[in-house]
């Protein structure tokens, strides 16, 4: 497992341009909304005292007024996404079934909410953009695996060729994975309601949180497990040049269950590295005042470093899985 981790990281970092290309796709997609967002923000802040406050800190009354006037995708901006909140908010959206495109949303709460909060729920435009991104990454993953399978050297043309070559199979695996997620969330809904009801009846809040965190933790593990199966299916497709996506997924299930400790252990280790990355970011974030363009540039670089790190881990996961699959199959 450790070797797979190291192999994966080495494979991901060896062709450093590969994560950078993936980062570029991520930045371009984010810019689709970030650029108009900047326009909205500047219009709102121009010739106000809030502009100065927002340079030095956060103007809560300004945001409160802004959020009243906003609807749609730009209303996502608020205190909830600041600090490390962005990661929590996104993971909560994930386990809430909002990703992708609100496909897996079920009524899971046994207790009605006090009143709906404005910032809850992701906007359809944001979700649509994310679906396109998912499609693009599904397209690219075949090419990425082709690079990882080989010596590590690649050309952009080769990457795109590999991506196109495997796209049909990768897309079918992705669809099967989405179907598995749909089943998981459908199963989760009654369990969540049941856990909610038990949580309400426990004597202590600690007990209630144990019910809630336990249920959500299990769901998250289920999501990650399906992702792992899907990743191995893609690895098997590319490494063994399989023609059938569904058979590759069946092989993946067999392989993962057969070597559960190694495969899921490796997967969780990569996930923990991602968590460590976020903790490192949280620890560093806020230790400097991003008031001038220079300090903002530092923030930009660190933020992009965080996203790049996340992408490197995604590639390293695939690389480690290629390595692990080859070694375990060789035995």
């Amino acid at each position: 497992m450790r070797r797979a981790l190291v192999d994966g990281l080495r494979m991901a970092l060896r062709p450093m341009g590969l994560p950078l290309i993936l980062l570029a796709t991520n930045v371009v997609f984010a810019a689709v909304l970030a650029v108009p967002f900047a326009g909205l923000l500047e219009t709102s802040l121009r010739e106000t005292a809030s502009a100065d406050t927002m340079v030095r800190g956060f103007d809560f009354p300004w945001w409160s007024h802004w959020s009243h006037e906003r609807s749609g995708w730009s209303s996502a901006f608020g205190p909830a996404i600041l600090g490390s909140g962005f990661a929590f908010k996104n993971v909560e959206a994930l386990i809430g079934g909002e990703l992708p495109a609100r496909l897996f949303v079920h009524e899971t709460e046994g207790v009605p909410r006090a009143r709906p909060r404005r910032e809850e729920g992701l906007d359809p435009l944001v979700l649509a953009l994310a679906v396109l991104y998912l499609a693009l990454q599904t397209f690219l993953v075949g090419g990425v695996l082709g690079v990882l399978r080989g010596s590590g050297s690649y050309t952009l043309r080769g990457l795109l060729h590999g991506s196109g070559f495997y796209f049909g199979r990768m897309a079918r695996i992705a669809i099967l994975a989405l179907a598995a997620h749909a089943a998981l969330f459908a199963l989760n809904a009654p369990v969540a309601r049941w856990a909610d009801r038990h949580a309400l009846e426990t004597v202590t809040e600690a007990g209630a949180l144990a019910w809630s965190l336990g249920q959500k933790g299990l769901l998250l593990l289920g999501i990650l497990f399906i992702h792992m199966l899907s990743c191995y299916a893609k690895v098997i497709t590319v490494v063994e040049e399989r023609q059938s996506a569904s058979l590759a997924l069946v092989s993946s299930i067999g392989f993962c269950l057969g070597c559960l400790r190694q495969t899921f252990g490796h997967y969780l280790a990569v996930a923990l590295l991602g968590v460590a990355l976020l903790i490192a970011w949280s620890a560093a974030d806020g230790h400097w005042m991003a008031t001038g363009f220079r300090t903002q540039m530092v923030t930009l670089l660190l933020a992009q470093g965080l996203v790049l790190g996340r992408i490197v881990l995604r590639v390293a996961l695939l690389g480690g899985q290629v390595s692990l699959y080859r070694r375990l199959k060789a035995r």
Partner: protein
Amino acid sequence: MSLRRLFVVATAFAALAPAASAATADLPDLPASSPRTASYSIDARFEPATHIIEGTLALDWRNASNVPLTTFPFHLYWNAFRNTLSTSARGQGPRAARFDDTDRGFGYTQVKSIRLVGDREADLTPTLCYIHPDDDNANDRTLMEVTTPAPVAPGEWVRFRIDWTSRVPLGRPGRAGWVHDYVLAAQWFPKIGVHRNGAWNAHQFHALGEFFSDYGVYDVRLTVPRALTVGATGRLLGAPTDNADGTSTHRFFQEDVHDFAWTASRRFLDRTSRLNERGLPPVDIRLLLQPEHAPMADRYLEAMKVALRRYGSWSAPYPYGHVTVVDAPWGSTSGGMEYPTLFTSEAHLWSPTALQEPEGVTIHEAGHQFWYGLVGNNETEEAWLDEGINSYHEDKALFLEMGPSAIAARYFGVRDPRGRRTGWPVVTPGVAIGRGEGHVDDLVQNGRKDTFRRSWDYDTWPAYYTNAYDKPALTLQTLEALVGDDTMTRILNTYARRYRFDHPTTEDFIRTVGEVTGKDYRWFFEETWFSSGLCDYAIEAGNVTVPSLRGYKDGPDGRVAWTSLPKGDSAKDSFQGTVTVRRLGEVRMPVEILIELADGRQVREPWDGRDRWKRFVFDQKVRRAVVDPARVLAIDVNPVNNTWAEDKGEARRATTKWTLRFMLWLQNLLELHTVLG
């Protein structure tokens, strides 16, 4: 000035403030005791297994009116949970009676007999009927009425004896009730209405609104299983008496209060402390704490001391010498409610200090000892008087003691019975909510929907909440800025002392404001409390070039002469600065406008705010213009448009800074999608 710096300055000023007792010379004297119009002696026995209370009470009641009375209304609050047709069950809001698919949510108060005892001995039970003056709901039994054979004359005392049985409902969503081995008994005994202004003031128990009753003496003997720790209104007289059947009888006694509540649980941790503050009477503080909240004991006790100290100087000293704080357990909705000398608070397991939980709710409910307990306004009809003044003082106390509050979202938790999210709190770094700012959001959303009215008459629960809490708190903060902090404190000192153990009305409060300030402030309350309008002032400015003189002018000989500007001499152009201040809302308030000009001069202009707009023109560039620069108008729902500032690139820098954050969230969200494919 940043909020943190403002907080430091405010704290420094607060520390320099003279002791409360030094300035009481010209204030009204405090009454030695209450009128003691309705005094209760109660014997009650609680059976946890069945959640049944069997009780007998003797009520000594004096006809304090100037008319003879034959009919007497009594509140039977727990009949709100009797069935699904009660007025509360048909109502809205988080406290409306609601039931799950079991019978545990149902409760009742059943009067078995009611008699007049003493000289006028009579059985009134046959005359008992249920009345529903507010909504004609014949199924509502929260108000009963009995008729005496002969009128009770003005000034005459009578004694009622009532035997009753109550079933305690599940402790959600109501304030009273049981959860596991915890029970909070509030509004639990038949309670007589208040006769005011020639009529009975007794309303049914609605989903929105609280309570109103007369002051008196309570002598209560509670018999409960021995293993239960008991807390109640009043002071425990002697040690509990153990009975042969495994129960104990606790006797609590309290003078000059208008209600009695008690609580019991096996799980309470019992913590005590004492407030010894110069200029204030000492107070024994008892904290009944959930074991899982043991690390928060000091925070609870310190918040209590803050409240007693601050409210003691801002209104009038707390006289009872003891107070009990009940930390409500998980699964109960009893948290955050006031009763005389006892109140409930609440806490989350994970409560970073920056979020001011449980400090905020503890200070608020402790504050009700002053605004509701000692000054007993009618909560059902004029909720803003106690909730509003109390919220105003709570904001002030929290800001002075703890500074601006942080903001956090909670993740991965479950919703509590009131529908609020528990879970891991992620505190947003660098975001602070200043004094009163947390109320503005509600005011914007609900301010125009309703105005002050009887609690149950509000269109929606948020409209009730806004008008009972947010709007009056911001209004009083505005009044404080208008009249000055010292005068505001003097207003509330006077009001608290004059109406201690009394039932003041809104008119009494407005009259007190006028008396202390020496000015008629009715216009202020007409614009705010009695209006559903919002307050929003805005300012805009512009600088335009005024070209140098070209064309015809008076010549030296008095004849018209032609003049023209030499080419390329546009540098001689001068500027005209224009500032337009607008009243976007309906509320009219006098405001000050501060204008900073290019030559560094500062111009201050007053405006009465009666018109919709006013324009000021200057013969040079305007650098900055602010309407209400001292932030007097806390009720201004959009302080952002109060300032116009010449853009020196801050907007661009702020934009890039926060766009990066937005982008990071979006990038992370996009990347997270790859987990699903």
